């Protein structure tokens, strides 16, 4: 068994592919730098992440794959699911080795798996767009804490930047403890020092803007009065709006 170690970054993964082709040996397993080596490993190679190598691999992928498929690879990476890096490695290897593009061959297991995982992330990305709830703070910043299963915050920034261009906002991932701040001009990545306070999903009342509570109350009232009691269907309700998002949603708090 051949094992590659790398720093578990996207650039690192692309560098690993470069190195594999250069060495003409392909890993059976990808490990993080500090992971314990499995038994019976014949060979262990440590990848040193280099951005120029990664860029070359990405460039050649862009030549062989549609923009859509390239996006899909990024989505799979952001899924943070176990083994998604090995799946990407297999997909990229298939792409490089094949004369014509493989991206629409859904009868191939790897292609279908990549497609499905990317769809899963894309679904959660959409759910962020749907279910993020901003609360207006006293300093006029609109604040929204979230904790998605997949790391999909970077994928929704453009949407919110265009939509809420005339208000300052923060989108914050409490699970990964980082977020994005929009200051009416640009979006910057940031980490809050006091993020532990928002794990309940609510902004402290002392920090709220003056009529924030009223609007939250208005929204709750509206949400309640929209339901038609003759048609109540809790199972469908949870299916469409999974419970794990509720704690951040005003109408469900």
């Amino acid at each position: 068994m051949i094992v590659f170690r790398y720093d578990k970054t996207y650039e690192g993964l692309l560098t690993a592919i470069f190195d594999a082709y250069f060495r003409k040996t392909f890993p059976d397993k990808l490990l993080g730098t500090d992971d314990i080596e499995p038994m019976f490993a014949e060979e262990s190679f440590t990848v040193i992440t280099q951005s120029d190598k990664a860029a070359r691999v990405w460039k050649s992928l862009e030549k062989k794959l549609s923009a859509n498929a390239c996006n899909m690879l990024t989505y799979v990476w952001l899924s943070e699911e176990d083994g998604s890096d090995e799946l990407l490695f297999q997909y990229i290897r298939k792409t490089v080795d094949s004369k014509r593009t493989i991206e629409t061959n859904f009868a191939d297991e790897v292609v279908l798996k990549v497609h499905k995982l990317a769809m899963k992330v894309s679904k959660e990305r959409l759910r962020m767009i749907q279910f993020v709830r901003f609360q207006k703070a006293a300093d006029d910043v609109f604040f929204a804490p979230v904790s998605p299963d997949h790391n999909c915050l970077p994928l929704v920034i453009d949407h919110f930047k265009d939509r809420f261009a005339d208000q300052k906002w923060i989108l914050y991932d409490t699970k990964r403890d980082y977020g994005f701040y929009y200051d009416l001009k640009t979006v910057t990545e940031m980490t809050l020092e006091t993020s532990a306070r928002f794990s309940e999903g609510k902004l402290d009342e002392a920090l709220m803007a003056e009529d924030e509570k009223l609007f939250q109350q208005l929204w709750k009232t509206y949400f309640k009065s929209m339901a038609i009691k003759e048609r109540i269907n809790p199972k469908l309700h949870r299916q469409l709006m999974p419970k794990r998002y509720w704690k951040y949603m005003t109408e469900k708090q």
Partner: protein
Amino acid sequence: MNEAILEKLKVLAESAKYDVSCASSGTTRKNIPGGIGNAQGWGICHSFTEDGRCVSLLKIMLTNNCIYDCAYCINRRSNDLQRATFSVSELVELTIEFYRRNYIEGLFLSSGVVRNPDYTMERLVRAIKDLRTVHRFNGYIHMKSIPGASEQLVHEAGLYADRLSVNIEIPTEQNLKLLAPEKDHASVYKPMSFIQQGMLESKEDRRKFRSAPRFAPAGQSTQMIVGATSENDKQILQTSAALYQRPSMKRVYYSGFIPVNSYDNRLPALKQPPLVRENRLYQADWLMRFYEFKVDEIVDDRYPDLDLEIDPKLSWALRHPEVFPVDVNKADYSLILRIPGIGVKSAKLIVMSRRYTKITGSALKKMGVVMKKAQYFITCNELPVHTVHEASPEYVRKVLTEKKFPKSKQTDQQQLSLIFE
């Protein structure tokens, strides 16, 4: 904004909730510098009510006062209920503040008719004009055009709204007259054609000048109440099919009748709204819009009503065994679409993938085909267990409609057997 508005919001949302239209799709609009909001072509649902319906727009009435007395409507003149009216500025502020918090995708504005149709329509138009011009709001706006409003006002509304709608409510004129004697279909079809005319003119103008204003770019929609009157599914679907012939009609909504005025004996007494029938009608509607089905393939004189036990596509397939089995490796896309258990997505995946390899049963399963249904209607690389011919349509129907034990009962049984052991 103050606390008093809470009560108004409650009353006016209660009054608007029976309108089932909720889509926010069909227009893409970017934000403008200094403006707020944009619109996405595919629409975004921001929440779901406990009955499982999507909330994408602030669906609200300007007022629930009404001069009409329609039997099916909660806001009818003769009902003794709390009445409220928003001022234009209250409504506009509420929309903007809800939008800023990402609660909604835009506004769905309707209203009871006060004084006369034009008086009401004018105030609705003022609200959406304010949103667009004063607040530079670029989110989605759906406005209900008031039946009987003048062409001028409909035209002005189309300049600010993404979608305009006029509800048919009751599919046949005769039954509409029975439940809403003050209304007729002409007052619905007239504004519908104003809207269509406006859209076609704007399209023509934009061909010459790219900067010409857009008119209701997301088209128009309408709603029919199902189960309040005696129409069968054939009459309902034929009405929809005729409406879809119009180039501007994007959606027809079906609303299972909810007896909000149960004292009125012109209405049927129902224990439960006809939800299954409503669902089947939507499935039939999809077949017409996305699956290339004609209305008389779905319902005809022999089968004027949709089958409540099985979906309309399966029902069609069982009535037409001669079309099957279909070879998924060779058949046209449109024929693959007709196989029960295969949707638009998997049909596309199949057509794309078969250029590489022969498609097998297990590959179909992985692509998301519901093999439980599809297996009787296809041949792929392997031989199927048995097709609809060998098994007979009656058998297939029986297998697919068989009720399984509810989960709770199964566990009960298991516990019992454990005790007796």
